[in-house]
């Protein structure tokens, strides 16, 4: 194997045993509690789970953007060989927006309402690459075209409020991608959008990963988005990854009863008009997690063994495939 090929196979991001906790008056909220996964260049990882399962805090932890008093209390995040959990603030800031960037659900959180789009875009470019106004504007124009915005010259002179929600989100994505980052963390960026607009954005993102080798962590609660977009999937429940594998492995032969329950409750997988197969109960409150497996009270396979914390069990020869369960389903074909 040549040296460059070896480099390409080396994961870009390795998250290992990440714990991010929030001390609160009522107790410690273990928002992320022992999360491990890795990501290669050009790969799209879908991070799915219900609200409160810890998806966003996982993303913020990687970017070093966890709000105090929350902080990473254990584990490591290695990005291209560099340990991020101990990186000084200034170095982290340089990395963000240059090599790692983020897209959030509400584009107005990243766009400045009183600045014209051209200024916002060129400032981002010039902050990381001093190429001069003219070239920066040219790049901004290209970036808008790439996310499917017609007549970019006109759009560059507009303010954010003159755009529809879907267009704003595409501008936010264009800005996140403009410095050709190696890694993009996208937190539910299409959840609020209509299907036709969502389709446009997913199209651009897919093209980007393929053409520039940008790796993506795509956070969502929507299994259908993951199904069409991701190469690999991690399913989160109560602060932990309970199952991981390729998209086909996880969606076609789920090993964890929670993943199975989620898939079974999707309307398209039930006879039309019939009652849906449902997971009973509710996700546990962050401060009231049961001992052992957090899914225990809702799980049809639970027994005495589940009072003990199940470890993540890998698959021999395939470390990226596994489930955290004492009694995994084995209906693999």
């Amino acid at each position, binding site marked *: 194997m040549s040296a460059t090929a070896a480099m390409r196979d080396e994961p870009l991001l390795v998250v290992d045993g990440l714990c991010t906790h929030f001390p609160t008056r009522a107790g410690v909220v273990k928002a992320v509690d022992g999360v491990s996964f890795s990501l290669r260049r050009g790969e799209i990882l879908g991070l799915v789970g219900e609200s409160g399962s810890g998806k966003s805090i996982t993303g913020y932890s990687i970017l070093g953007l966890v709000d105090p008093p929350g902080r990473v209390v254990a584990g490591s995040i290695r990005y291209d060989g560099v340990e991020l959990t101990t990186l000084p603030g200034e170095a982290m800031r340089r990395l963000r927006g240059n090599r790692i960037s983020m897209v959030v659900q509400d584009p107005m959180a990243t766009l400045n309402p009183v600045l014209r789009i051209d200024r916002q875009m060129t400032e981002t470019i010039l902050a990381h690459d001093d190429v001069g106004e003219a070239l920066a504007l040219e790049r901004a124009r290209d970036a808008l075209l790439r996310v*499917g915005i017609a007549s970019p010259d006109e759009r560059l002179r507009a303010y954010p409020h003159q755009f*529809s929600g879907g267009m704003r989100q595409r501008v936010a994505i264009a800005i996140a991608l403009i410095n050709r980052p190696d890694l993009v963390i996208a937190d539910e960026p299409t959840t609020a959008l209509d*299907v036709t*607009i969502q389709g446009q954005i997913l199209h651009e993102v897919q093209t980007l990963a393929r053409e520039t080798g940008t790796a993506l962590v795509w956070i969502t609660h929507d299994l*259908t988005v993951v*199904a069409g977009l991701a190469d690999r999937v991690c399913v989160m429940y109560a602060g932990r990854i309970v199952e991981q594998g390729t998209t086909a492995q996880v969606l076609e032969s789920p090993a964890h009863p929670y993943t199975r329950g989620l898939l079974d409750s999707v*309307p*398209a997988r039930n006879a039309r008009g019939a009652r849906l197969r449902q997971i009973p109960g509710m996700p546990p409150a962050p401060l009231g997690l049961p001992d052992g497996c957090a899914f225990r009270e809702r799980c049809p396979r639970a027994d005495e063994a589940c009072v003990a914390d199940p470890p993540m069990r890998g698959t021999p020869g395939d470390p990226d495939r596994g489930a955290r369960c004492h009694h995994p389903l084995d209906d693999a074909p």
Partner: protein
Amino acid sequence: MTAPLVELAGVSRRFVRRRDLAARIAGLVGAGGAEEVVHAVDRVDLAIEPGEVVGLVGESGCGKSTLGRLAVGLLPPSEGERRWRGEPIDRLPAARAREQQLRMQMIFQDPYASLDPRQRVVDIVGEAVVAHGRIAKRQQVEYVGLMLNRVGLDPTLMRRYPHQFSGGQRARIGIARALAVQPEFLVCDESVAALDVSIQAQVLNLFIDLRSALALTYLFISHDLSVVRHLSDRVVVMYLGRVVESGTADALFAGPAHPYTGALIAEAGRVEARKRAYRPVVGEIPSPLAPPPGCHFHPRCPRAMPRCREAAPPLVDIAPGRRVACWLHEAPFAPPA
């Protein structure tokens, strides 16, 4: 033939709103001054049979919620007539209008905003039935207990306030409130959109159970095609205030006749793990303030012809129970007079 339970005939709803300050400062104002008119619902005909579940789909802002509010009488139409079992209901005497109002209930889009945070559940659910004299005040607690049981909530929680419940429980409170007045017709506006996947299935099952237990008729509004397909007998597709297609759920999903319906179905998510090449609908959802002339969909339609820019296609019957508004379909089927 018996009359439909609910019927809208040529119903329109326009909103006049003041332009916002930002728009004026940004110099967006051409002609027209400080006010602008939105045709939220534009000459819609809709008939819903007793016991039927009709799904209403379309992109954000196309007028689904407005049509739902018109259908239950929460909003008066600017034009057109509304009928209940064949009888016009827009000019009923006050007492009969109040009776009529109870027969039709709406479950709102936002389970957070639609419950008064200062009211206890016992009053949120029980107030209207008591106020209308359907039950006596002293029966309220018992009655609310029955309603909460019916939607799968613990009646001992009725002294609590909305913020003390989860999203899924709040959705159930909203449903209990609507059911309390014993309606015959329910409009469910994006009633599961804000819920987590596992809770979504629970609430959809509740709708399915209630339909058969109480012989309810539903207008089910959702942008989620898989939900609509699962629940509905018939589906109505809206685009920018107009109905562009309607038909049985089976027929419509098997063979969409309108290019927009086709695009919606093509883009709708699936859980089969196949990397997809997304082939998006081009262009933006146009502004309802300045809808394109002719067929509203023409700037985004892959099959647009010159005439599509000039005249709006009428909604015509193309098969029994199947209607579409598109110049590609010229009414080969004439309904019996």
